[in-house]
C-alpha cells in the first residue's frame, strides 16, 4: 500500500508546491480530464451496449442520466472533452514542430482561452436542455 500512497502523496504535494505555472496546470488538467472522460466512456459504452443486450436496463440508465448529479456530470464531461482535445492538439503540434516550444507559454494560454471561448456557448445551450428536464423546474415555470 505504501507503494501507492507515497507517489500519490508526493504528486498531490508536488501539484500544490511545485511552481510549474501554466505548463503544470495544463498537464494536470489534461490528466484529470482524460481519466474522467475514460471513467464516463467505460460506463457509457456498457450502458449503450444494453440497447442490444438489455433494453430495459438501457431505459433505466437514460432515466439515471436525467438526474441532477449526472446532468452536472454531463456539463463537466463537455468541458473535459473540449479541453483534453484542444490541449492534445497543442501537445501534438509542439511535438511535430519543436521550433514552437519557444511559444509554449502563449500556446498554453491560447488553449485555455480557446477552451473557454468554445465552452461558453456550449454551456449556455446545454444549460437550456438541462433546465427543461431538471426535476421541479418545469412545474415551477408554469
Amino acid at each position, binding site marked *: 500500500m*505504501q*507503494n*501507492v500512497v*507515497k*507517489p*500519490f502523496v508526493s*504528486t498531490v504535494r508536488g501539484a500544490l508546491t511545485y511552481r510549474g505555472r501554466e505548463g503544470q496546470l495544463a498537464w494536470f488538467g489534461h*490528466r484529470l480530464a*482524460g*481519466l474522467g*472522460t*475514460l471513467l464516463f*466512456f*467505460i460506463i457509457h*459504452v*456498457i450502458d*449503450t*451496449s*444494453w*440497447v*442490444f*443486450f438489455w*433494453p*430495459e436496463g*438501457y*431505459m433505466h440508465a*437514460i432515466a439515471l*442520466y*436525467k438526474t441532477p448529479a449526472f*446532468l452536472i456530470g*454531463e456539463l463537466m*464531461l*463537455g468541458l473535459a*472533452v*473540449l479541453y483534453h*482535445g*484542444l490541449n*492534445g*492538439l497543442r*501537445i*501534438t503540434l509542439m*511535438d*511535430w514542430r519543436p521550433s514552437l516550444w519557444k511559444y509554449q507559454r502563449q500556446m498554453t494560454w491560447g488553449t485555455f482561452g480557446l477552451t473557454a471561448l468554445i465552452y461558453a456557448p*456550449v454551456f449556455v*445551450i*446545454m444549460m437550456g*436542455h*438541462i433546465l*427543461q*428536464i431538471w426535476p421541479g423546474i418545469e412545474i415551477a415555470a408554469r
Partner: protein
Amino acid sequence: MTTTTKSVSQRDNKFETFMWRYMRWSGVLLVPLVFGHFAIMHVINSVADISYEWVITQRWSFVGWRIYDAFLLWFAGIHGFNGLRIAINDYVHGESLNRVLNILAVVLMVIVLFVGTAALVLAPTTPVTLPTG
C-alpha cells in the same frame, strides 16, 4: 535479471514509442470524431431526446452511424486505456500491484471493446417491442 534486462527494455521501448505515436495520431482523429459526437448527442440533441427507440430509429438504423460509433469505440478505447496505463505506471511503483492493476485495465478494456462492438454489430434495425409496464 541482469541478463534479460536489455532485451526486455528494448521491447518496452518499441512498445512505448508505438503508443507515443498512437496517442498523437488517434488524438488528432478523435478531435473531430468526439467533438462531432458530443455536438450531436449533447448540444444539438440532449439526454431528453435519447431513448431506446431513438437510438435504434434515428442512429443505428443507418449503418454509417454504426461505423462512426465503431471508430469512436476503438480509437477512444485504446487511447483512454493507454492513458490509464501511463497513470498507473506513474503512481504505482510496487511491482506486483502495478502488474495487477495493469492486467485489470487490459481486462476491462477487452470487456468494453467486446460488448460495444457486439452491440454495434448485433443491435436490431427496428426497435424490439418491449413489454410495457
